[in-house]
């Protein structure tokens, strides 16, 4: 017989949705359009530039020994800003661990993020106590949490109401590598089964540490969704306008009660996996160069300059704002309060069992014994 469906033949959907070409020209797409103003695009540019500055500064802080680790988002700014700016209350946002740009848009103070990587804190954000979930480091685990939250929205009657503004959905972030995890595929199953209002936002940055996406899947990842009975869309992840348009569509559909969507943002991790990683071991300078030419920030800047929506003065202001932000980060990082081991017993249970109370007391007595000795 002839080869049935599911083989590696190409499909029209394989070409990522694009609305802004790398050279800054706006292009049309039959299905999606960006309807915002140039002022909004300028705001996106600001988000992206500041986010990149946060990222560079955090990387620098790690190099100086102030952070234990940092997973840079360099190159993924458009995917993150475009998708985050498509959310609104009462949407819920569930990140993985590289969503510093999403965190930024959702109002998380980047210093909170530094606390996690400095080892002063766990993975929660005092500055933004809800709406933006904890970072998760177990690959894929958060996709199930996101589906559960979407099931909660259904039970809270926040889906499919006539009053569209009352409706919400969940957007959950994960990587290309994560698509191989059982949890992520179970998340697809559960979301489809419940017709849950969840947008699975996969940043395909071409690598899971050293492993190229081709090792995880021999066909484009967005197609995974069709096998579970919901739509998948591939979008140019370096095109902030396209990302926002596609995510807006997906979220609207979910909020209306249309069920889950998988968005594959086709992008590139321009930096290392983390500050511990050395990408030269597994990829070429040529490849990095090719993707460098598709920088998500450059094209927005080019467009806005070309239409006169911004000028050099605007950019200079932004540069100054960036530096001020970086300065604030440096200071904020060093000022992060040192945690106390004694405090750790309080967050294990809602009511701490006696044995743990005693264990803490013993620890304190033991610590105090040193202080006494020292006297």
């Amino acid at each position, binding site marked *: 017989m002839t080869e049935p469906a599911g083989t590696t033949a190409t499909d029209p959907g394989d070409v990522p949705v694009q609305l802004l070409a790398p050279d800054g020209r706006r292009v049309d797409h039959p299905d999606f359009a960006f309807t915002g103003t140039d002022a909004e695009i300028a705001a996106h540019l600001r988000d992206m530039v500041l986010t990149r500055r946060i990222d560079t500064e955090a990387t620098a802080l790690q190099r100086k020994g102030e952070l234990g680790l940092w997973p840079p988002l360099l190159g993924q700014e458009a995917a993150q800003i475009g998708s985050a700016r498509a959310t609104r209350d009462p949407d819920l946002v569930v990140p993985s661990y590289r969503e510093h740009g999403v965190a930024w848009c959702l109002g998380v103070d980047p210093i909170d993020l530094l606390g996690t990587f400095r080892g002063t804190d766990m993975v929660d954000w005092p500055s933004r106590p809800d709406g933006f979930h904890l970072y998760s480091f177990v690959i894929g685990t958060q996709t*199930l949490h*996101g589906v*559960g939250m979407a099931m909660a*929205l259904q039970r809270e009657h926040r889906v499919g109401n006539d009053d569209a503004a009352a409706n919400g959905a969940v957007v959950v972030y994960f990587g290309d590598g994560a698509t191989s995890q059982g949890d992520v595929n179970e998340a697809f199953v559960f979301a489809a089964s419940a017709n849950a209002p969840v947008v699975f936002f996969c940043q395909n940055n071409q690598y899971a540490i050293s492993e190229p996406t081709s090792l995880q899947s021999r066909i484009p990842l967005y197609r995974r969704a069709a096998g579970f009975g919901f739509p998948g869309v591939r979008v140019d992840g370096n095109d902030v306008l396209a990302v926002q348009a596609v995510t807006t569509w997906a979220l609207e559909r979910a909020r209306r009660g249309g069920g889950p969507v998988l968005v594959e943002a086709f992008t590139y991790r321009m930096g290392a996996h983390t500050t511990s990683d050395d990408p030269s071991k597994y990829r070429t300078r040529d490849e990095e160069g090719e993707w460098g030419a598709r920088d998500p920030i450059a094209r927005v800047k080019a467009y806005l300059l070309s239409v006169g929506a911004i000028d050099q003065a605007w950019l200079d202001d932004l540069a100054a704002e960036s530096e001020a932000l970086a300065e604030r980060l440096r200071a904020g990082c060093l000022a992060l309060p040192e945690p106390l081991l004694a405090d750790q017993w309080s967050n294990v*249970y*809602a009511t701490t069992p*006696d044995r743990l109370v005693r264990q803490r007391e013993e620890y304190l007595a033991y610590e105090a014994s040193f202080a006494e000795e020292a006297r």
Partner: protein
Amino acid sequence: MSTMTMAKALNAGLRRALADDPKVLLAGEDIGRLGGVFRITEGLQAEFGEDRVIDSPLGEAGIVGTAVGLALRGFRPVVEIQFDGFVYPAFDQIVSQVSRMRFRSHGRLGVPMVVRIPYGGGIGAIEHHSESPEAYFAHTPGLKVVTPSNPLDAYWMIQQAVADDDPVIFFEPKRRYHEKGEVDVEAEPLPLYSARVVTPGTDATLLTYGPMVRTCVQAAVAAAEEGRSLEVVDLRSLSPLDDEAVFASVRRTGRAVVVHEAVGTLGLGAELAARIQQECFYELQAPVLRVTGYDLPYPPSRVEDGYLPDLDRVLDAVDRSLAH
């Protein structure tokens, strides 16, 4: 006051939990229309609707992982794992997420979830259907682990577990599902995390829980006929352990035998022995002994009677303890 089986008591307890708090949800495989393979949730979907008593797709990680999301939004999910041996696909979610969400969020986010697990052997089942995995969970900080041994406790403990703001692994001794007992639905229940002296005694303490409580009570009765007074302590909570109750009993009797179905090595008996020898060092007149499942995978059911602790093995250990 009425007489009912543990299965019915659990059903009644869950019904009351659902009725008392609209945030309580049930989820699991076959728990809705079928009422669960053990019928613990029978009738509850009909009564509370498909949105609150959810037939889940067949994936334990999915069941527990989505319940985490629901719990984070203020729901109180009670999930059923169909049999003990099928909890492992959800292990990562339980150990790395459920148990730690509070810690990961500096105390801000709780996961008030109950994971119900029918457990233990003695029912003539095929593999994976007779296991006692409680030690895996009791070793995990952030979880609470409890197990009722009788209908009365089952009725109350399930409600207390649902009401607890911490995640509770709720082990149900499936071989005792159909044994009857008095259930007083008005009585003030014992606090969830406290042990109970089921049979007072003076010569030695039997520390046990879940399905083995009945076995130990029978052993105490048999021992009494030979003039030996055994105290039986039903631990009820495996994490936290009710240390004071344990130590108090052992201090009185001077001897302790721990009895459980789970394999001995690193089973609850290990922790109890370690704590007792430390806290009751001078009161102990004999080493703490353990009567447990042997260190084998659960064997074919035709030999499970020999594998599982029974009255004779318990009394044999008591003899050895007293002979010291």
